[in-house]
Structure formats: structure tokens, C-alpha cells
């Protein structure tokens, strides 16, 4: 009997290759090590902990990049179908690591202005990074749910991190209620799919009904089943909550405003990117057979998202809410790319990734400037605070202008090329209506992004006493922000510098 059991278990563990998730394991060890270091180190050397976090993550980045090359990566399934690695997931590992390194750096600046516990911030950021890497690699709904919840639960803490500010706590509560609601909706969808795909009375039922491959085969042959359709729609709705697409966008401006600025950046870039990659894998994987249903639904969502995000951002004066609302619009553009991928444009997923990279560089440039300029009252950063910034702090003003220009899609910058690729993909997929709406959205977005730039460069209060709070601004800050802008410009001029589009 025991032999039988051992044999059975051995069948399951045959392709457990722990080496292939080495970067995630190393991140987990690093995160726990930080907590340990806080206990062990004497109080006056606690300044080492942020350095340990940063250099540790850089080390993991090097390991992750050297271990598996991105180009020509062979897709393969591991851990009895729990993990499926492709060139996209390989690339996203690096993407999330770069995000978490930047967030740790900005977090260091943010925490130096606040009276808050410090180590836990880095711990949670690293845990989220590891969980997001597993999230994009998961090819089983159990794996997907657990990784997604690890990300979300850690984000609840980070959003409410500034315990002394009731705005941060309120944002945390709102994110918590909305996040838990979206998880329940996602789960109900998963359960319906599981129930119907494993039903022994239906044709082509599967014994492993939570696996993406099995579901794909089942759904392709049962795409008319009502429960399949409802389940798939609920799953898509749950993901739409995470990426902030209309009609599930209500939480975005509030949560972005209330959370600490580095966390806002993390939510805006990494969390959204993870949501999109999961969406991409679902619609081109298990839900491939439901194209007839999902393409119209997602097209409608994308159009509404682009229009809502841009129109709501026009009148916004709080810069964090502005970034949130314009982030909704960016989610809409990326959704257009996802729909193009569903319609069979083979390189559309790579256009989405390219756009995410340009969005990362530009957003972190803007959020970096915001983190530098924010006072201890982090949630209320108004456009008026940026008046004459270029005259007071020319360097920061230049960085901000480049970042916003890239977000708006001005030609020599990376954002333009990113949008161009997405629009070409949409054109090839014959999504002309969506293309028109996207172009309209871009035109509107130029208006409000340049309202912000105008505030920096052409403020009218020239006789105002320039009360410049000289926040410490050292060489490494300059190098980091400069590198983000240089990256944006290089991608904009030589898109081939980023070898993503095959």
C-alpha cells in the first residue's frame, strides 16, 4: 500500500524542478532575511537594511537574467502543470524585479520623511515581487489564486502603510473591500468553470479541470454552454478589477491618492502589468474558444475605459488622482492590444509588453519626482505645488517633462513607439473603431499632461518668494532618475534597443 502511494506521489513530483523557480525562492529568502537582520543588527546599523534589500534584489536580477535567456526561450510546463514558463514570463520576471528595486529606492526616500517602521516595507515589496513572478507563470487556477492573493493581501498592508494618516488607512480599507470583492467574483467564476469542465455527463470533461490546458480543450468544444460563459465572464470581471478597467475602476483614484507615493507607483505599474499578463494568458489560452463572446465585451470595456480615464483626468487637480485616472486610460490602450492578440495578431502580446516597459520608465520618472517633492503630508499633492518647478529645481522639472511627454506619447520618447506598436496591432486586427477612440484618447491626454508641464514651466507667480524646501537630493537620485529618462529616449529613437518584438 505504501509503495503504491509512494509511486503515485512520485508521478506527481516527477517534474518538480526547484531550480527553475530559483529567483522566486531567492527573493523569499531575502525578504525573510531582512526581517531577521532587523532583529539581529544593533539599532544604529539599521541603515544597512535598505542597502541589503536593494543589492540583494540586484543580485537576484542578475541571476534571473543569466539563468534563462529571454530570446528563443523554450516554453515548458513544470510542477505537474502548475507552472508554465514562456519567453513572456521570463521577461516579466526582470520587469517585476526592476519595479520592486525602484519601489524600494523610492520607498527609502519616502520613509526618510516619515516616522514609520521601515524594514517591513522592503519585506512586503519583495514578497509582492516574488508572488507576481509566480502569478504570471501559473497555469492552474489554484496556483493563480494563491499567487494573486499573496500579491493582493500584501498590497492591503502597503496601501495602509502610513498608519498615522487617516487618508492612507481609508485608502487601505477601500482597496481591501474592493480587492476582496473582486477576488470573490474571480473565485466564483473559477468554481463554475471547474464544476462544468469536470462534469462527467458532459462531453470531453476533464479530470484536472483547474488546469489551463485542459480547460482550453474543454471550452473549445463546449463554448455554447451557459455556465462556461458565465464563469469566463466572472473571471474576466475579477481581473478587470485588478487592472482598473471600466466599470470596475471606482477604487483607482481614491486608492492611488491615499497610498504612499512609492506604493502608488508599484500599484500603477507592476500590479497592472501582472493583471494584463494574466488576462493575456487567459484569453489566448483557456478562453480561446470564447472569442465570439469575449471580443465584443472586451472591446466595449476598452472603449469605455479609454474615454472615462481621459475625460475624468481633464479636470483633476490632485496629481496622484491624475496619475490614477490617466492610468485607467493607459489600461484601456493596453486592452486594445490584448484584444488584437485575441483576434490572432501573433506579435500583439509583445506589443503589450513593450508598452508596459515604456509605461514603467515614464511612470517611475514621474513618481520619482513626486516622491522627492512630497512633504510629510503625502496624499495631498496638488498641481499648484508644481508651479515654477522648472525654475526652482530645473533637473526635476526636466525629468517630469520627459516622463509626462512619454506618457502622452510625444514622438522622440518611448511612449510614442509603444502606442504606435499597439495601434499597428489594432490596425492589423481590423479594430478600426477602437483605433479611432484610442487616438481621440491620446489627443485628450496631451491636454492634461501638458497642463501639468505648463504649470512647471510657465507658472505666472514669478514674484512669489521661492520657498524651496531642499529635500536631500544626492548623486544616486540624479543617476537613477536620469537613467529612466535616458532609457525612455533611447527606446523612443531606437526601438530595437529593447529586443522584445520578434
Amino acid at each position, binding site marked *: 500500500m505504501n509503495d503504491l502511494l509512494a509511486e503515485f506521489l512520485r508521478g506527481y513530483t516527477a517534474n518538480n524542478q526547484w531550480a527553475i523557480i530559483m529567483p522566486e525562492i531567492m527573493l523569499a529568502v531575502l525578504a525573510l532575511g531582512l526581517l531577521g537582520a532587523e532583529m539581529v543588527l544593533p539599532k544604529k546599523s539599521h541603515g544597512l537594511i535598505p542597502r541589503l534589500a536593494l543589492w540583494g534584489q540586484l543580485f537576484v536580477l542578475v541571476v534571473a537574467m543569466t539563468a534563462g535567456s529571454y530570446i528563443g526561450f523554450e516554453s515548458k510546463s513544470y510542477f505537474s502543470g502548475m507552472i508554465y514558463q514562456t519567453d513572456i514570463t521570463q521577461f516579466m520576471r526582470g520587469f517585476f524585479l526592476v519595479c520592486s528595486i525602484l519601489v524600494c529606492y523610492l520607498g527609502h526616500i519616502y520613509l526618510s520623511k516619515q516616522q514609520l517602521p521601515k524594514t517591513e516595507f522592503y519585506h512586503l515589496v519583495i514578497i509582492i515581487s516574488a508572488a507576481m513572478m509566480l502569478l504570471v507563470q501559473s497555469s492552474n*487556477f*489554484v496556483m493563480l*489564486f*494563491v499567487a494573486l*492573493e499573496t500579491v493582493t*493581501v500584501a498590497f*492591503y*498592508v502597503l496601501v*495602509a502603510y502610513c*498608519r498615522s494618516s*487617516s*487618508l492612507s*488607512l*481609508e*485608502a*487601505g*480599507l*477601500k482597496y*481591501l*473591500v474592493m480587492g*476582496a*470583492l473582486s*477576488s*470573490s467574483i474571480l*473565485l*466564483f467564476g473559477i*468554481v*463554475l468553470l*471547474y*464544476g462544468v469542465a*469536470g*462534469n*462527467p455527463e458532459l462531453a470531453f*470533461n476533464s*479530470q*484536472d*479541470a*483547474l488546469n489551463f490546458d485542459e480547460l482550453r480543450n474543454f471550452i473549445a468544444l463546449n463554448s455554447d454552454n451557459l455556465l462556461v460563459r458565465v464563469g469566463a465572464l466572472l473571471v474576466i470581471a475579477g481581473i478587470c478589477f485588478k487592472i482598473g478597467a471600466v466599470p470596475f475602476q471606482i477604487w483607482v483614484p*481614491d486608492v492611488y*491618492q*491615499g497610498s504612499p507615493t512609492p506604493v502608488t507607483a508599484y500599484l500603477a505599474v507592476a500590479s497592472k502589468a501582472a493583471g494584463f499578463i494574466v488576462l493575456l494568458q487567459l484569453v489566448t489560452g483557456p478562453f480561446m474558444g470564447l472569442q465570439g463572446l469575449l471580443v465584443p465585451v472586451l472591446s466595449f470595456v476598452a472603449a469605455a475605459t479609454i474615454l472615462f480615464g481621459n475625460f475624468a483626468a481633464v479636470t483633476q487637480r490632485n496629481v496622484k488622482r491624475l496619475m490614477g485616472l490617466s492610468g485607467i486610460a493607459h489600461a484601456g490602450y493596453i486592452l486594445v492590444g490584448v484584444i488584437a492578440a485575441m483576434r490572432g495578431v501573433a506579435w500583439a502580446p509583445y506589443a503589450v509588453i513593450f508598452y508596459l516597459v515604456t509605461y514603467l520608465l515614464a511612470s517611475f520618472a514621474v513618481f520619482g519626482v513626486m516622491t522627492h517633492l512630497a512633504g510629510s503630508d503625502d*496624499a495631498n499633492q496638488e498641481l499648484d505645488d508644481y508651479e515654477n518647478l522648472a525654475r526652482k529645481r530645473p533637473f526635476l522639472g526636466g525629468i517630469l517633462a520627459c516622463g509626462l511627454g512619454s506618457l502622452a506619447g510625444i514622438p522622440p520618447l518611448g511612449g510614442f513607439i509603444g502606442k504606435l506598436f499597439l495601434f499597428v496591432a489594432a490596425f492589423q486586427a481590423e479594430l478600426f473603431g477602437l483605433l479611432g477612440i484610442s487616438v481621440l484618447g491620446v489627443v485628450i491626454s496631451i491636454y492634461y499632461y501638458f497642463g501639468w508641464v505648463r504649470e512647471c514651466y510657465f507658472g505666472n507667480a514669478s514674484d512669489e518668494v521661492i520657498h524651496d524646501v531642499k529635500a536631500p537630493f544626492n548623486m544616486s537620485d540624479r543617476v537613477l532618475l536620469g537613467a529612466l529618462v535616458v532609457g525612455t529616449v533611447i527606446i523612443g529613437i531606437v526601438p530595437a534597443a529593447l529586443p522584445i518584438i520578434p
Partner: protein
Amino acid sequence: MTVGLNAFLLVSGLLFAIGLLGVILRKNTLVIYMSLELMLNAVNLALVAFSRYNGTMDGNLFVFFIITVAAAEVALGLAIIVALFRRRQSVMVDQLNALSR
């Protein structure tokens, strides 16, 4: 007498709907919290019923993960609510609107 799959699914759907309406309509954050738990438990019930009917164990296994995650969420949520109550002296949603302007 055995109770059929449809009965379980009906109860589960009802619980889910009650939870969803509670989240949308109620004003007290603690009640919203209970409604969220109700939704998760509706999912659990459906999972167990499906698992039994389909004859696969994945559903039963998944329930444990959901329960664990729900426990983590509750612990965090109550901590945030308590911290917020200390600052605002209120747990009603309509008074927690400092951000929406």
C-alpha cells in the same frame, strides 16, 4: 434521501447574491466584511458540491486555500478597521469620504 447538486448550487448562488448585495448596499464596514466572507463561503460550498459530484479532489483541496486566504484577509481587514476607528471614531462608509474629492 440524497440532496442533488442543483440544491447546493442554488444555496451557493443565493449566498453569493446576498453577500454581493450586502457589500454594495450596507454602510457599516463590519457588515460589509461579513458579506465578503459570505461570498467566499458561497464559493466554498459550490466547490465542495462540484468536487463531490465530479468525483475529483481538486475542489476539496482548493477550499483549504480559500479558507486560509480568507483568514489572512480578515485579520488584516480588522486591523485596518480598528486603526481607522481610532483616528475617525467611525466605521460607517458614508463618513469615510475624505478621499473622494
